[in-house]
């Protein structure tokens, strides 16, 4: 009874907070570019507005896959909320959530029949390189703490101090992952403007609103994960401050960097992963 209420409340918080943080991110980007930008609440309003808009299902779309892939995205990130903020369970499940997210990006693009979606689908395969930093960060956290359970990692940090001070390069890798998923990121090759909006191009109206809802939950879960994995058991106030700070920092970075071409995006992420992984191994054993 309480578990279901806990899950529902956390999903609602994830959606609302994630939407506001993405709205803030967009506002920061606009201000850096000397534009007024939309209000911070705009992302939330758009997500809700789209529920009442006309949704066209293109003739070339692979139905019901075209609709069910958006449903699967929501399922995946609700699992993320349950495994993360609700039960503080295994990092391996989070890794699986992220892997399926990649698959959803790929299939959402291919299900619509649009060439923009298909190009995004191909780039989603390339952007699987972003899983390398996540995998490497998880491996390093395991080497350091001896556990892949989030509650175990929190317990370790309450005794030995935050992991940000002992394995900071692992935090850099996870931050790279956050950057990849943030809007208008230099690594966001699946949603580049050269592809209109990539795999989201042909998902209109309500499906777009549903997609935006899932992505705001995803942003919240990933920020929560970063903060608890590297800063330990922090209070809600510090969690909010941390999430706002990261959204602002990624906003600055995204406003001042161009989108890399797919090959450069992949090589940059692999290079960051390699340097940080080797550096952390050296730090742990020396």
């Amino acid at each position, binding site marked *: *009874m309480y578990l*279901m209420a806990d899950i529902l409340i956390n*999903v609602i918080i994830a959606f609302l907070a994630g939407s506001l943080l993405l709205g803030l991110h967009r506002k920061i980007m606009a201000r850096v570019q000397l534009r007024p930008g939309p209000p911070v609440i705009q992302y939330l309003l758009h997500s809700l507005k789209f529920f009442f808009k006309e949704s066209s299902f293109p003739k070339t779309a692979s139905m019901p896959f075209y609709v069910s892939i958006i449903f699967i995205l929501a399922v995946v990130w609700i699992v993320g909320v349950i495994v993360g903020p609700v039960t503080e369970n295994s990092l391996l499940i989070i890794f699986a959530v992220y892997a399926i997210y990649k698959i959803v990006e790929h299939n959402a693009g291919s299900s619509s029949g649009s060439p923009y979606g298909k190009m995004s689908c191909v780039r989603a395969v390339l952007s699987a390189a972003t899983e390398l930093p996540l995998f490497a960060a998880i491996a390093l956290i395991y080497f350091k703490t001896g556990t892949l359970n989030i509650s175990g990692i929190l317990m370790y940090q309450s005794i030995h101090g935050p992991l940000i001070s002992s394995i900071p390069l692992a935090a850099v890798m996870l931050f790279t992952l956050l950057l990849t998923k943030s809007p208008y990121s230099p690594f966001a090759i699946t949603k580049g403007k050269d592809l209109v909006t990539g795999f989201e191009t042909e998902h209109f109206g*309500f*499906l777009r609103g549903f997609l935006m809802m899932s992505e705001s939950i995803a942003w919240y879960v990933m920020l929560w994960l970063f903060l608890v994995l590297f800063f330990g058991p922090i209070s809600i106030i510090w969690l909010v401050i941390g999430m706002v700070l990261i959204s602002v920092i990624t906003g600055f970075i995204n406003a001042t960097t161009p989108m890399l071409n797919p090959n450069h995006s992949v090589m940059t992420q692999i290079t960051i992963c390699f340097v940080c992984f080797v550096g952390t191994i050296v730090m742990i054993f020396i």
Partner: protein
Amino acid sequence: MERQTKICLLLLVISTIFILYALVFTIPIWLVYVISIFFIPLWILSLGLITMAKPREEDKEARVEEPFTGY
């Protein structure tokens, strides 16, 4: 009422019943996970399919024509 709307309404009611059941009664943890993972997105999906605006009959065909033929 259109067939799609009827099906969506049925799915919405079923999802609501399952979510309320998990909220009110004490059930095994695995069942709570199954209900929350499957029925929360289904609730949102069915609600959205009911609330979304429908095109006028004369515009319907033009809306779904895919311009990218041959790709």
